[in-house]
């Protein structure tokens, strides 16, 4: 499964490789963010969604996101050397988990890779204006996420975000996330 996914991601990455050949030369030895995540967890990307991949903390915290309009399914890995968050508790108390300073709310649970995980809900600012303008009223999108511990003290944050304050009438994004979570597997485990 990991191999199959790696091929899919390699092809996706390859689609943009021509455009970023100069960048690739500088990082040819490093794993792409998707490859780094693939080493920890396997998953099947939602069909037809655009892949974005990047990393924070100087490459220590890889991120891959599947995007369709205002819907976004994200896989983030933390807890490795140089990570901004050493433990799940650090992440849950940080800015990435809360709503502009407020703690995330528990919003049920979900089974992922054979484990029952708490689902949290948070709001995050969307459609921001000129960064030189004093802040005004902020529209908040909604994000649901769960934290999956993986090997080596690392953990994966799986999330679904809707970059709009308006509820999704069709639940299209939520359904895609639910389907995505069912494909998430830990290497070497039958779940």
């Amino acid at each position: 499964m990991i191999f199959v996914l790696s091929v899919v991601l390699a092809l996706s990455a390859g689609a943009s490789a021509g455009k970023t050949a100069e960048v690739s030369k500088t990082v040819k030895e490093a794993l792409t963010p998707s490859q780094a995540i693939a080493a920890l967890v396997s998953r099947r990307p939602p069909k037809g969604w655009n892949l974005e991949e990047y990393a924070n903390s100087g490459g220590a915290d890889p991120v891959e996101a599947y995007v369709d309009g205002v819907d976004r399914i994200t896989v983030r890995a933390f807890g490795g050397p140089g990570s901004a968050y050493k433990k799940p508790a650090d992440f849950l108390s940080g800015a990435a988990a809360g709503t502009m300073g407020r703690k995330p709310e528990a919003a049920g649970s979900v089974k992922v890779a054979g484990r029952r995980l708490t689902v949290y809900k948070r709001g995050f600012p969307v459609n921001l204006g000129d960064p030189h303008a004093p802040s005004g009223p902020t529209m908040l999108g909604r994000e649901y996420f769960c934290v999956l511990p993986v090997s080596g003290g690392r953990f994966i944050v799986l999330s679904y975000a809707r970059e709009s304050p308006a509820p999704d009438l069709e639940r299209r994004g939520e359904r895609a996330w639910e389907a995505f979570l069912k494909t998430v597997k830990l290497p070497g485990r039958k779940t």
Partner: protein
Amino acid sequence: MSRRLLAPLVLGAVLLLGTSAPACVTCDAPPASVLETDPPPQAPFEAATPGALLAEEREWLLTLEDGRYEEVNGRLSDRKAPADEHLLTNSAAWALLGRRAAERTAALRPLARNGRLPEVVRGEAVALFWLRGTLLSPEDRDFLRAATLPEDKPQAGAGELEAGAEGPGGVTAAGGPPAASAAAQSAALLRSLRASLDIAPNADPRAVAAMDEALVSLVGTPTGRELALEFTASGSRAKLEFGEVKNSATVIMNGRRILRSSGGHTFTSENPPRVVLNQDYLDTDPDFRRVNMTATLGHELFGHAFEVQRAKKAGLSLKSVYHYRGDEAGSGLIGWLVQAELGGRLDNGHMWNYLADPERYHTGLKTNLPYYATTLSLAEMRAPVATLESRVAAIDTARKSGNAYAASMVAWRPRIAHFVSAHGMDAAQFSSLHEDIAAAVVWNNSHQASLDSIHTHLTGTIERWKKPESAPLKTELAAASRSAYMRQAEARLAARADRLRGIVGGRTREATIPPVPGKLTWDDLHRLFEQDQQDHPDHWGKKK
């Protein structure tokens, strides 16, 4: 449908975190939010208070003796101390910080040439002199004072300042002179900063008073103070003025007149750089101006205007700084820090997005304004054309997202009508939501126009950069990306972000504009929608 649906659902809020530290009354006391000018030596050291520790001091303390000290509710717990005395006291912290300052001073001494330190380490020496000078021996203090004087021009006001402007508790090293009072030091620093600035005359008497107040407020914050010290010690200069900002306007929200346009900008190509504050600030409410204009001043003066001078001294060109994405992020962090330290509202979406996911913050700016579309990370500075080319495709994605956003909002107009017609709810309750929907459409129209401008700017830049005459610029960008200045700039970014996380960690978001009483919010609409789907699935095209 009954009005019971409007009652907020009980949310299963779960407090997610605990601390490994044992229960302790002193630990449980809320951490101080403001640095005391004369803290009792035996009181717990308030490590999380803004200005209490430099980022590198915090890191040093937390890694001492394999993690002997750990942070507990804003204070430092000593694993080796008895349980009832486990919190580090001020006197113990000063001893440790003095030890570190002496060690760092010893490490800096060999780097000095003719008594002066090179630019790359001068910032550290300045911070040691001003913040830890009273903990050092007179010899170390004298060394730092002399080593940090700028070479090119007399340092305005430096001679009248004593080390340890913010030194802890007025403590002095044995044999050292007593530190001057904090108020006198602040006044001297302000004089020193003013001497580094050319403040343009203004016929409007409000301008003089407002600029004066902003400078006083800025130097009154820990971040502003530290940067004022560095700015003056480095011999940097700037012009300050109020000016017109296109399409600017003030608006009344919640009874307060506030600014809803760019707060200002800096002409970094001028010598010295010219900082322009939006003159409309003068019409805003004093409490809004005190915080927001001071934050803008910090952003422009100690961000853009100072950084370009640091870069020039390090041998970098203006263009290298112009295209470096950290210039905006670093300035942003200064403004956010100043705003937080002034007790301002933590309602800046850019700030929260940066703290949550720095890379996404940068990506978001690329489709915000044309200028940001051509800013680059250090890795991207080595491949500028390929990077900009990859961003052209991102504009199409941003167009689709903008349209999807507006559509997601507009789709709710008929559904809102459903709650009114089918459930008899008062249409007036939904007026805020209708305003948001209308604003989303306006925003998307404006956003699509911005994306047109970004596309033009981006493709024009790509075209220019592909020409042979742009080869020197590309070489310059690549060299800049590997420079000591950029490494230090990235380190400053990380330190400021850490500091900001520490400050905002204990505070919660306050809305600039609280929900209007009697009007439904989007959260309310979510609850209504979920409840109605449960109670009346047939209303939503499903079988009951």
